């Protein structure tokens, strides 16, 4: 299974845009974890996870995101998740994480 991740930092907005493509499962979740951690360590800032190109994710991916979310929250930053596909949105809804991570869906 493959996971490719694109990331860029928007200096004006002080915002990371991180776009994983492919599948996040037990074999690729570590790649997502280190990508998010490295980005945040390089430049502290909020993170947008753009899931438009993410086909599959399970609890291994949710764990990575919750972990990063908690660590960033302590320092006053947050993570927002955009464009999740139907299958991933369902997972977020089942676990109530949609309210925390996709707040804009409820505005």
């Amino acid at each position, binding site marked *: 299974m493959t996971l490719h991740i694109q990331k860029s930092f928007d200096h004006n907005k002080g915002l990371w845009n991180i776009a994983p493509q492919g599948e996040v*499962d037990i074999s690729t979740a570590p790649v997502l974890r280190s990508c998010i951690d490295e980005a945040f360590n390089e430049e502290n800032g909020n993170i947008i996870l753009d899931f438009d190109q993410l086909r599959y994710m*399970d609890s291994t991916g949710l764990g990575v995101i919750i972990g990063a979310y908690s660590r960033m929250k302590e320092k006053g930053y947050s993570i927002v998740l955009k464009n999740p596909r139907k299958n991933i949105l369902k997972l977020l809804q*089942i*676990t109530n994480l949609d309210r925390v991570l996709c707040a804009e869906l409820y505005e």
Partner: protein
Amino acid sequence: MADLLKLSVPGKPEYVGMVRMAISCLANSVGFDIEAIEDIKVAVSEACTNALCHSKNRAGGYEVYCEMSDDKIVVSVVDQSGGYDKNSYKEPCLDQPKEGGLGIYIIKALMDEVDIFTEIGIGTRIKMVKYTK
């Protein structure tokens, strides 16, 4: 009569994707729609992840059994990972997100029937059923 397919999988993370792909093929041939196939993929992956992550012996493999009938698929994931104490299992508290502890909860939410047989010192068998409706 149901068709039984069995997969014996090496105990490494990189093979979970292959199991997911194989199961999604089988679910498709039973006639599940896309949403149900995605549910089954996630549930089976969670079960495989547990067989791998909670193993006391490194690189122990596991088995995946799939029974395909006209109206349902039954998937069992069986490991010799040492089992666990079912009484100490706690449902996740969704108001306070934590990094782990979501696997079994998600499996139960996505599948129609879930049975877990586990014996400490031996291993675990999780049986998951989904109906085509």
